[in-house]
Each structure stands twice: as C-alpha cells, then as structure tokens.
C-alpha cells in the first residue's frame, strides 16, 4: 500500500533534514569566534576534567574527526555534562521532554480542533452576528503578543483572583504528600496547566479559525457542494460530510508548516510559567552559557518538531484519499 511508502519516504526525508540541522549546529559552534573548548568546558572545572572532556569530544583532533565523534556521541546519547546542573545533559532532557510534549501536544490538539470546528461553523453562518463576533475575537486574540497575554493572564487569574497557581507544573506539597493518589496529582498538573494552555490556545485558535473559515467558504463554492445540495441532502450532512473534510485539508497542511513557529511560543510560555520543559531549559541554558545543554535541547526540540510534522503528514494522508491510493 502506498501510504506505507509515503510514510517511509517522509521519514527518510526527515532523518536527512535532522542530520543537516545537526551538522549546521556543529559548524556553528566550531566556527564561532573563540575557543571551542570554552563551549564544552565550564570555567569552574578542574584541569583534569577539562582534559577529559577535550578528549571525549576530540577537541585535540582534526575537524572531521571531531565531527564524526560529534555524530557518534549523539547516537550514543552522550551530550556531555551540564555546566549549571553538573549532571549529564541526557538525564535532564529525559526529564524535560515529556513535560514539553504534554503541554504542547495538548495545546496543539485543542486549538487545531477548535479552530477547525469554529471555522466550519462561522463559514456556514457567514455574515451572522455569531460569525462577526467570533471572527473578531479570533482576530484579536490571534494578534495578541504571546508573552504579554501570558503576563496579563497571570496578573488577573493568578495574582488578583488567585484561581490558578502563578507558575510551575506541580505543587510540591501535594506531590510530597504520600497520601495523595494519582488522581489528585493529575488534577494538580491540570490545575497548573490551565493558564499556559489558555495562552497557547488563545494565540493560536484565531489563526486556525480564520484559515478554516476562508477555505470552507471556498469549498462551499465547489461543484460537489452544488451536487450535494441538488441531491437534497440535509444541510448538516452537506456541511459536515461534504464541505468540512475538504476544507480541513489546507488547514492541516498549514498546521504542519506552523509547528516550528508554534514551538517558539511554547518555549516562551514555558519560560514565563516556569514549566519545566525543553523550551524553558533552552532559554535558561542560553542565559547561563550552558552550551552543552543548549545545544542538546535545541536538537531535541528540532527532532520533536520534525516528528510532529511527520504525524501531521500521516493525518493528512489519512484525510486525503488522493494520497492514500
């Protein structure tokens, strides 16, 4: 079946892309002004430690060997030691990745789904009060500057009203309490997630709604919609079965294309809410000149975006029979 081939080819492409990104990163760090040793070693390290690291990363060897070693280290999951945490980078990332995935994936699913649903409804009722008001709302929230919206939401809902925690992912008192079960812990995470989710949702929902609305309007002009009407099908069937799936196709494409863009917003959200994810770690490590951690968390984010892209591609192929067969 062709779908399998399609996924295979896309996977290979994505691997190649990732490899190129890795190489670019290597070039960037090695060609940057200054001593490459400085990027790998902490000023507070002892000389023996520096020597050990230099050897591990082959800094005493020619560039091409360094590159091979870099790739090999990557494959082994050996990213060095974080200057800040004094722990292996890989351990830190292992802890951060699921947290980013949780926040980002939930947000993406929520806003994509809501955008498609609302766009569909608004196009169907174009010109109505509902259309005007929701479109306007979407347009406004879509153009909100994300960090600012986050600060405002914290200010109102966490500081003034006190409905949600100011930041972080868990409340230590709940998680340290041996009495609390998984439900209580889960609800606690959910409680902490509400505001960051709201920020990501509000800044993205409008864009998808508007795109879906306009592609839906275009789809409604297609001949097969006329056919569906002529067939005497109920309006709901025309909207949900004939128009919406076709209109959603370009929206799914744009979802794939804007994942990279959304992860920027994800990183900022994590930073503001102190959500212990990859994005925050990246911002944090760059501020602290923690190069090994910065490098590795960037690569991991890139990989995350690429894999998400692949998933979107698969969803697209599933929706469009012209790709499947």
């Amino acid at each position, binding site marked *: 079946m062709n779908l399998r081939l399609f996924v295979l080819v896309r996977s290979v492409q994505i691997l190649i892309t990732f490899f190129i990104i890795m190489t670019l990163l290597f070039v960037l760090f090695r060609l940057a002004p200054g001593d490459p040793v400085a990027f790998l070693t902490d000023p507070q390290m002892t000389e023996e430690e520096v020597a050990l690291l230099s050897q591990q990363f082959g800094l005493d060897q020619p560039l091409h060997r360094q590159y091979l070693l870099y790739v090999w280290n990557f494959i082994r999951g050996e990213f060095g030691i974080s200057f800040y945490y004094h722990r292996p980078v890989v351990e830190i990332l292992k802890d951060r990745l699921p947290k980013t995935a949780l926040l980002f994936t939930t947000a993406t699913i929520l806003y994509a789904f809501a955008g498609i649903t609302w766009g569909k409804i608004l196009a169907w009722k174009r010109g109505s009060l509902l259309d005007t008001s929701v479109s306007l709302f979407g347009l406004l929230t879509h153009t909100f500057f994300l960090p600012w919206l986050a600060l405002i939401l914290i200010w109102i809902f966490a500081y003034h009203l006190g409905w949600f925690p100011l930041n972080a992912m868990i409340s230590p008192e709940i998680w340290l309490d041996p009495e609390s079960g998984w439900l209580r812990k889960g609800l606690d995470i959910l409680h902490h997630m509400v505001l960051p989710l709201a920020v990501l949702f509000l800044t993205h929902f409008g864009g998808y709604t508007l795109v879906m609305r306009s592609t839906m309007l275009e789809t409604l002009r297609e001949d097969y919609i006329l*056919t569906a009407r002529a067939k005497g099908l*109920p309006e709901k069937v025309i909207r949900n079965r004939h128009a919406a799936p076709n209109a959603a196709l370009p929206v799914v494409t744009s979802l794939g294309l804007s994942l990279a863009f959304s992860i920027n917003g994800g990183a900022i959200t994590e930073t503001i809410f102190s959500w212990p994810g990859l994005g925050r770690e990246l911002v944090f490590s760059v501020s602290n000149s923690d190069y090994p951690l910065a490098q590795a968390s960037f690569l991991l984010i890139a990989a995350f975006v690429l894999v998400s892209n692949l998933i979107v591609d698969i969803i697209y192929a599933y929706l469009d029979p012209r790709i499947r067969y």
Partner: protein
Amino acid sequence: MSLLEVDSLTVHYLTAKGKVHALEEVSFDLKKGEALGLVGESGCGKTTVAMAIMKLLAPNARVLSGKILLRGEDLLRKGEEEMRKVRWKEVSMVFQSAMNALNPVHRVGDQIVEAILAHDGSFSEEEAQKRVSELFALVGLDPNRMRDYPHQYSGGMRQRAIIAMALACEPSLVIADEPTTALDVVVQDQILGEMKRLQMDLHLSLLYISHDISIIARACDRMGVMYAGQLVELGPTQKVLEAPLHPYTRGLLNSYPSLRGPKKRLRPIPGEPPNLWEPPEGCRFHPRCPRASEICRSSCPPVVSLENGHFARCHRPRS
C-alpha cells in the same frame, strides 16, 4: 398535462457592476418521456434555467416573475425543506464538470448510496449498496469499482457515475447541463447513446442544456434556442434544424462545419453576443441580425407561432 412547465421566467443577478438580465420571459414545457434541449452560447442564461428549476440559484439571483410548475405545483413557492424533497427524488441533475461534481474525499459508490438513503427511508444500507451496483451496471460501469475514489476514474467513467447518481432515486425529470462537454468525441457519442437508451427504457424526461447544437440535435425530440437571456425559438428538433424561423438559429446552423455534404464557406453571425448588463433595446439580436428593420430596433418582438408547436420570438420570422 406537461410534466414541467416554465412560464415567463425572468431572473436577474445583482452584481457590483450592475444588474444582469440573465433570463427574460422564458417559457417552455416538457412532457413525460420527452427529451427537450436548450442550446445557446456561453452566457445566454441556459444554466440559469437549470438552476432555477432546482432552486439552486446563486444568492445574488432574483426571480422577478414567472412560474416553474412541476406536475402543476409551483416550485418557486416551495420552502427550502419541501424543495429538498423534490430535489433528486423528482428532479435530478447531470452536472457540467464531472471532474468537480464528485466529492474527492468520498468513494463514488458512497456518494450515490447517500442520495438514496437521504430520500428513501425504506432502504437499508445494504439494499442501497445493491441498488448502486445495479445502477453501475445500468450505465455501463463495473460495479466492482464502486469503492474507488473519483480520482481513480477516467473522465468518461466519472460522467457515467454522475448519470448513475442522477438516476438513483428514479426521478421523473433529469436535467443534463453540458453532460459531455469535456469528453472526447467517441466517449461523448457513447454517453449520449447511453442516455437515449435510458430515456427510452425508464421513460425518463430529459432536459438537455448545451452550447453545441449538434449534441442537442443528436439527443432531443424538441429543442429551444436561447440568445442573450431569451428563448428565441422552440420547436421539434427536425423542424428547427431544417426550417429555422429565427435568424439567430439560422446563423448558428451556418457556423458549424460539416463532415457530410459539399464543403461550403461558413457564414458566421457577425459581431459578438451583447453583455447582459445593458442588453440592446428592442430585439436583443438586432445588432447582429442581417434582416433587422426599424421595428426590431425599437420594440421587443412577441412570441409567434407559424406552425403547430414551432415558436419564435421575432418580428420577421422566416418569410
């Protein structure tokens, strides 16, 4: 009694550029089991007639006057919900561009099943599937290809699928809007033959709409000629082709090169059709008419009947 009677139908489109006089006092009727053709150049309003019957006119269209009687009931007075029951069950349609008339994301068979189920509650899913495979066989398609998607079909196959779809609910009237325009000559011939056979076998009434007079000639018992939003001639096909009353019809017939008979120089109608924002005063054809006289320039000609059942909208029909 006629199955369908269109009585002085007038439709305008409101556009940013102004009012388009798309249809002006168009009247014709269609009997049970008959094939009637409407022929005319692009923009003459023939598709508007079809859409008005289906009540699927664009939102900026305004029906100013007229009646569309189906078995004596005026469709223009029906509400949307009532009309939904008329569509496909009573009147179905074969669309112009088969490529786009089928939804690309649904299987061809399912799109027909859906029409059956929407109108006939007595069908179960399986019975509807079975009916579709009968329909496929009827129009000359392999029933095994029901589960294919439209993009897996060739142009001719898609057109056949559309015809199968149009017949799904056993309608009494099928409107075929340029049913073969995008197809090659041989396939076009097959499809027209197929439709003729179905018309005979199922005792269907057919309303053909085409820009190509030869297709209408091939398929219809009676034909009407449209020009600039008006029906300028209506009569039995044989009569209209052999002894046209209206100068436009004659000009149109002279515009087609022929494969048979001696080779003659074509004498096309000079000029171009008028735009319908500002149709000419008087007879709409007068600026291009070789026989136009003073009265043609000033007053709109009435519909005259020279012979039984052969009408023309002309001041000076064939002398």
